[in-house]
């Protein structure tokens, strides 16, 4: 049992904030998702030149 606990404790890295316990990998993935969401909102979508021409008519 003790060996099992040692193996489990050695698997991965974790962040602890009180009752909040999360692996570094999961935290990084969630952070990347939030960054991706923000980038999707702020980065302009590429336009075709034909669209600009048709919009100006």
């Amino acid at each position, binding site marked *: 049992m003790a060996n099992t606990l040692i193996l489990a404790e050695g698997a991965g890295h974790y962040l602890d904030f009180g009752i909040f316990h999360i692996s570094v990998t999961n935290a990084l*993935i969630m952070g990347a*998702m939030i960054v*991706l969401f923000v980038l*999707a909102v702020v980065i302009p979508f590429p336009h075709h030149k034909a669209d600009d021409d048709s919009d100006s008519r």
Partner: protein
Amino acid sequence: MSAVADTAPARAVPAASAPSPDRTSWTAWARYRITHTVPEGQWLPDRQPSYVASWIYVFGMATLVSLFIVIGSGVVLALGGSEWWHTSGVGHFFNSTHLWSVEIFFAVMAIHLWGKFWMAAWRGGRSLTWMTGMIALLAAVGTGFTGYLSQTNFDAQWIGAQAKDGLNSVGLGAWFNALNPAAALTLHIVVLPLAVGVIVIMHVILVRRHGVVPPIGAVPLIGAVPPIGAQEPTS
């Protein structure tokens, strides 16, 4: 696909204004529902309003594409079996393809959800579109959970035991044993994917029927066709 001015997608006749079929003929009724649920020209549109020209509108299609890869790689895994996907190079490849397409599927689906939440995408008669999306999310989570036993390793055993304890604690253990690999696998590869597939098809049909939700505060141009939800008969 090209972006155009802030008008609703062009369509000849709104579906709700077409005459209803003879109720005595189920074939006429089925034909009417199939051809009028989505307005003509809106099944595969090649033009969209200009506000759709944003990266945040890409994530719905990204979710669909990753779902196709999830299903395709899952079908290959089902053909080979666990002895194959654990021991051969090609099996490892499809095993990893299945895993990472699922990771991407949930990531882009979550971003799609965030985008639609902050757009209040249930506006304009789109409440069913929103609800089917949420049900699809729940069904997909269930599908993911039932897939852990397919690892057929100690990780699968540990996750199954945790799931069993969790389900027992809320009284669901009498109906479903999370440590039963046959039940979990059948749910994972047949029942729940079928549910996800049907709900996603309904979701996409509703998106095509009502069009993409405009930004909050957008003023429609004079002559633009309003969403179908605003024209639906109340009876």
